[in-house]
C-alpha cells in the first residue's frame, strides 16, 4: 500500500511541476477533466494526435525552410497549425514559440525563422518527453493497483 501511495505522490508532484515550469497550462487541465469512465484514455489519445501532428508539421517546416526560395505564406500556415494544436492541448511553451515564429514569418525574416524553428523543436522535444514520463508514471500507478484521479 505504501508503494502505491508513494507512486501516487510522485505522480501528483510531477504533474504539478509541469504546470509550475510552464510546460503545460490550464488547457491541459481541461483535457484531464474530460477524461472519465466513458473516455478513460482521452488525454493520451489527444496528446498522441498532437505528437503525430507536430512531427508532421515540424517536418514540413524544416523542408520549407530548406528551400532556395522560401514560401513564407506556406511556412506561416504550418506554424499557424502548430500554434493551434499546441494551444489546444495546453503545450504552453511550444505555443509561445509559435507566436514568435509567426512574427518572423510575417517579417519574412529568414534568420528569425530558422532560430524559431530550432526553438520550437527544442520545446516540443522537452514537452514530449515530459508527457511521456507523465503517462508512464500513470501506468505505474495503475499497474500497482492505484487510481489516477483528477
Amino acid at each position: 500500500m505504501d508503494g502505491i501511495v508513494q507512486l501516487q505522490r510522485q505522480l501528483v508532484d510531477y504533474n504539478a511541476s509541469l504546470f509550475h515550469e510552464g510546460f503545460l497550462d490550464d488547457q491541459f487541465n481541461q483535457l484531464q477533466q474530460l477524461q472519465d469512465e466513458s473516455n478513460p484514455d482521452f488525454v493520451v489519445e489527444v496528446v498522441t494526435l498532437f505528437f503525430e501532428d507536430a512531427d508532421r508539421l515540424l517536418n514540413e517546416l524544416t523542408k520549407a525552410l530548406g528551400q532556395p526560395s522560401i514560401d513564407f505564406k506556406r511556412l506561416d500556415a504550418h506554424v499557424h497549425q502548430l500554434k493551434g494544436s499546441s494551444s489546444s492541448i495546453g503545450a504552453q511553451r511550444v505555443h509561445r514559440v509559435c507566436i514568435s515564429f509567426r512574427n518572423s514569418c510575417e517579417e519574412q525574416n529568414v534568420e528569425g525563422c530558422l532560430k524559431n524553428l530550432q526553438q520550437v523543436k527544442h520545446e516540443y522535444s522537452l514537452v514530449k518527453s515530459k508527457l511521456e514520463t507523465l503517462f508512464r508514471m500513470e501506468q505505474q500507478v495503475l499497474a500497482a493497483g492505484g487510481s489516477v484521479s483528477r
Partner: protein
Amino acid sequence: MEFVNTRKLQLQQQLQPPQQQQQHFHVLAVDDSVIDRKLLERLLRGSSCKVTCVDSGDKALKYLGLVDDLDDTTSSVSLETSSSSSPPPQPLEQEGIKVNLIMTDYCMPGMSGYDLLKRVKGSSWKDVPVVIMSSENVPSRISMCLEEGAEEFLLKPLQLSDLDKLQPYFVKSLDNTCENEPANSSIDSDNDDNVIIINNNSISKRKAISPEPHHERSRPKMKELAVV
C-alpha cells in the same frame, strides 16, 4: 409521404425518454485540425449530442448536399419540391440528414469558415445556427461573422465552459412537428430561464468578447407551445 414520416418521428419521440431524445441533437463539426475535432467531439458527446466531423468546408457542403452538382436530385423522393428556380430540397429530410447546429473553424485551408457560413446562410440550411470558432480574437472578424448570420463566435481552445454558451442550442428542435406536439420533449431544465422549444431562427446573437448570461432569448411566435 412527408406527413407519414414526421408522424412516425413524433411517435418515436414520444416513446423515448427525454434524455434519449436529447441524443438526437446533431452537430456538424468542421475543422481541419484533428486535435480540435477530437476535442470538439468529446465536448459535444459529453452533452449527449450526435456529432459528425468533417475536415473541410468542402466536405461540409458535400455532407449538406450543397455541392454545385445541379443533378443532385436523386434524394428528394418523398419531399414537397420547392417551386420556382429549383433550389435544393428541404435539408431536414434529404436522405434523412438532419443537422441542428453547425460549428466551424474560421481559419481553414481552402474554404474558410466564413465562406462556409455564407454558403450555408444562402441555402436551404439557412435556419440552422452556425457557430464560428477561432484561435484569434479579432473584433472585425467577429463582427463580420455575426453580421453574416453566425449565432456565436467562440475562441479556441474550446473548454467545458463554452458548452454553457451552447446550451440554448441543445434544445431539440422539432421543427415542422412542433405545432401539434405538446412541449414535453425538448426542455432544457438546467437553464434558469423558462426555456421553451425554439425555432432555429429565434436565437439571439452573442459575441465571444462579452460573456453575458442568456436572458435575452426571444420567444417563438407559436401560441401552442407551452412554457415551462
